[in-house]
């Protein structure tokens, strides 16, 4: 194989690139963050463009097959993430394309109930309690997200890759896109980076970090895949009647380089589908060579798993691979160093910021989570230091690796987006920069949109007095 890695460069000539559109707000990337941003900006009156690399919206939530919106209630069962996340779920409910514990079970410590939900889905329990998490249908979601942006009046470019910002000093004038129509430009007053990876950072001169300890969840890529044609009844019976043999098989699968475990879908009518989620260590999730390598490794491992299960596991005799995720499961890469950087210290602080734009339940850190049940998110962690009209609305928000580890999932990204989009529109309406936006007005508008926000004038004084934990935290490192 070629190994002549060079540091040679080649001159790309200056060129005139056609401007195809001018808008108020440009959102780059149509994942959960981009959806939140585009829908909110447009609903608040901004002329909004959304640029998406693939042919559908939803990012990890659809194309990544990470069809899970978890951690919506805090441990007491109070729902803290509502807004656009709940709207997405409500639209899925209307189509019978979602599965979640009903409201009366949220926060329950009833052992039978907790066991039931734990077996149903790993995501529906945390801290010995039932937690509100939604398992969503990927295909119906693609449709629903199209509907939401269409109704909001967002101008969408699918199959278009937003590659570079057009900078003029510390101001971003627009974005270069590549598509089948060739290289083109879109100009805008506010640009929101919802690429997940902060793709615009290096070109915009936005400071960022990308250190991730290798034992963290977010250090891993995923290539999720679904297997259909499984006789789940047979598989479950075998598992229950022969727990020892089942464990032995799982061990053998693991030893042979296959994955040992799967989730069942549980969505209506999907009674023969199982999901394999997985982790692949890597050097970087924005290095194209690493992405290629993991695609290969992932596909190899997928085939091994499939072959092993089909051959050895009762119930899998007639199974087949429905699909491997069209998008690699990226978990974290660049993180902006913004106006405020959320750090480990904030995890154990519990205090709302004056510019709080979201509350995230903290459920994954065992006793620590019980002591600090909610995390408050300041608007400033969406703002870069040295660019005056860009926002970040995705997992690349300003955070250290610890905060990133726990708070970069789908509902979190939607919340970043909802705040960023709303703030952009309000700033434009008021004729001020995004950094000068009236925070109280922003919070008022977010509340109106159904986003729970704290009373920032009151100090939170909190002490956990409930029973001690019996299960270990989700992701102890």
């Amino acid at each position, binding site marked *: 194989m070629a190994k002549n*890695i060079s540091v*040679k460069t*080649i*001159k*790309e000539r200056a060129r005139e690139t056609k401007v195809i559109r001018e808008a108020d707000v440009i959102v780059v990337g149509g994942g959960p963050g981009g959806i939140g941003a585009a829908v909110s900006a447009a609903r608040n009156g901004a002329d909004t463009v959304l640029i998406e690399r693939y*042919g559908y919206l939803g990012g990890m939530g659809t194309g990544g097959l990470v069809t899970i919106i978890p951690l919506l209630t805090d441990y007491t069962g109070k729902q803290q993430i509502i807004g656009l996340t709940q709207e997405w779920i409500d639209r899925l409910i209307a189509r019978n394309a979602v599965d979640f514990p009903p409201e009366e079970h949220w926060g329950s410590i009833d052992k039978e109930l907790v066991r039931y939900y734990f077996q149903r889905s790993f995501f529906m329990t945390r801290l010995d309690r039932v937690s509100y998490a939604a398992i969503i249908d990927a295909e119906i979601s*693609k449709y629903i997200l199209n509907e939401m942006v269409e109704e909001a009046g967002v101008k969408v470019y*699918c199959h278009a890759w937003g590659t570079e910002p057009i900078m003029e000093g510390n101001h971003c004038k627009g974005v270069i896109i590549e598509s089948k129509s060739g290289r083109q430009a879109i100009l805008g007053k506010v640009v929101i980076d919802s690429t997940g990876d902060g793709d615009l950072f290096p070109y915009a001169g936005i400071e960022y970090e990308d250190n991730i300890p290798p034992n963290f969840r977010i250090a891993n890529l995923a290539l999720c895949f679904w297997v259909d*044609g499984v006789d789940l009844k047979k598989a479950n019976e075998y598992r229950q009647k022969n727990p020892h043999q089942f464990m032995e098989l799982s061990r053998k699968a693991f030893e042979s380089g296959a994955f040992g475990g799967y989730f069942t879908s549980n969505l209506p009518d999907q009674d023969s*589908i199982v999901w394999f989620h997985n982790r692949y260590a890597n050097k970087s999730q924005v290095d194209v060579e690493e992405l290629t390598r993991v695609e290969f490794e992932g596909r190899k491992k997928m085939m091994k798993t499939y072959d092993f299960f089909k051959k050895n596991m009762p119930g899998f005799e007639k199974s087949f691979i429905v699909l491997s995720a069209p998008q690699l499961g990226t978990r974290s890469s660049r993180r902006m160093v913004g106006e405020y950087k959320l750090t480990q210290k904030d995890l154990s602080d519990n205090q709302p910021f004056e510019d709080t734009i979201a509350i995230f339940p903290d459920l994954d850190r065992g006793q620590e989570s019980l002591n600090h049940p909610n995390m408050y998110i300041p608007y400033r962690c969406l703002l870069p230091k040295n660019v005056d009209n860009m926002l970040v609305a995705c997992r690349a928000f300003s955070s250290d690796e610890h905060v990133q580890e726990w708070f970069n999932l789908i509902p979190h990204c939607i919340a970043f987006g909802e705040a960023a989009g709303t703030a952009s529109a309000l700033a434009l309406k008021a004729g001020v920069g995004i950094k000068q936006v009236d925070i109280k007005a922003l919070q008022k508008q977010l509340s109106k949109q159904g986003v729970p926000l704290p009373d920032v004038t009151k100090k939170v004084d909190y002490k956990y007095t409930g029973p001690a934990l019996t299960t270990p935290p989700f992701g102890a490192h």
Partner: protein
Amino acid sequence: MSGKSAEKTIKEPARDIKVWREVDVVVVGGGPGGVASAISAARSGAKTVLIERYGHIGGMATGGLVNIIPNLSDISGKQHIYGLTMELLNRLDKRGGTSYTRKKDRGSTEKKAVDYYLDANLGWFYVRNDHNTGMQRVLYSAVVDPEILKDELNDMVLGAGAELLLHSWGTQVIMKNNAVRGVFFESKSGRQAILGKVIIDATGDGDIFVAAGAELDNECDNKRRTAWLALVWWLTNVNIRKYDNFKASQPEKYKELIQELIKLGGYPMFFKGILKNQPNTVWYHCMQPQPQHTDAMDVEQLTKIDVQARKRALITYDFMKKYVPGFERSFIMLTAPQLGTQGGRRIIGEYILTEKDMETDEVFEDTIAVLANNDYGEISAKHPTLCIPYRCLVPKCVDGLLVAGRAFSSADTINETFNIIPHCIAYGQAAGTAAAMAVKAGIQPRRVDYKALRANLVKQGVNIPEYSGKKKSESLTRSKPKDFYYQKYTSGGG
């Protein structure tokens, strides 16, 4: 506020771009044409890089869910396509990743066999009308499992020694005088360059030859299959037996329902998933017209069609689930990750294949493939094969460049009939082999020795007839097909 702006431009300053590799052959696009190009170039000794926009290779055959490899034989059952297509099918067969018409059925007119294959695919890939006899006959065609195919193609490309870069979109070219010397590509690593001695445009859409300023043709009659886009989706958990029984026992009611579905804007036709272990799965190949341009190049139109097609999928799904027996518990298991593009820009090559070539039966000096001609009505009946010259992969005016895939030099008539997966693999196999020969000899691709190219392809198992040096006389029947073969599919009737 704003809106569409007219011809405004923005200045991008000159800049230095990092060169990621310097190789012999750069293949842009990992669909059937690109994969075959990369495998052949690498096996022929060229240092080769393949870059692909998505995270998988296989293009329409995998990400487009057009997992069909038809027309391997002519209507008599005689096989014409071998080479890499057969190698691939043999490899898939070992893993249970393909289903195909049985050898003894190929060419058969026997009702039982014909009905069996018709039932699954509505005549699309397994059965054709024989205009000589008026009877239906079974072809040699295969369907393939997209996920197993992705893995198998990875193995073949890497096994050949080519280097592969996924998630990389080849966008612009590096020119020196009149020759392409490399490409710029975009990825999560930012903008980078690859330099090469021969660049193969296997983007399907001629993205690279457009950037290189090559002359092209994008005219296409809007009734042609190639003027339409498709979003393929799969429904599963369908009780096919119940559906069949309903259709057979209440044909009037069935017809009524289908009319109702069409009225609602749904898509009435599906294929039965005939891969192994897919007894409950059906495939919808939903065709969507391109109202403005028919070349699948306009990003605004692509977006609109993607959105519309998804709406149509949901209308269809809702209706089938609610009203059609057998579909009560069905669900959409996936929509294709890639929009199904079927045709578009074609290079103006050293030779342009036109309808006329179907009727001359000419064996060109530079023949690189023989393709079964099954879809062109009476002309197909009289002329069951078409030879493809190497020259239709060679741009007329640009050096350092070959075209592999559906953008080969052809009129829209030829393109519609000969731009599907096995054809693209054949073009790729020839382009990759020729590129490696050009690099070895230090010449431009257009100077490659035809005889040596033919001999190399024959060595690789490609079926190429002897070149006699004689040009066939032109005695054209000019009997055009009465209607477009594919029209009934594009129109959504059935």
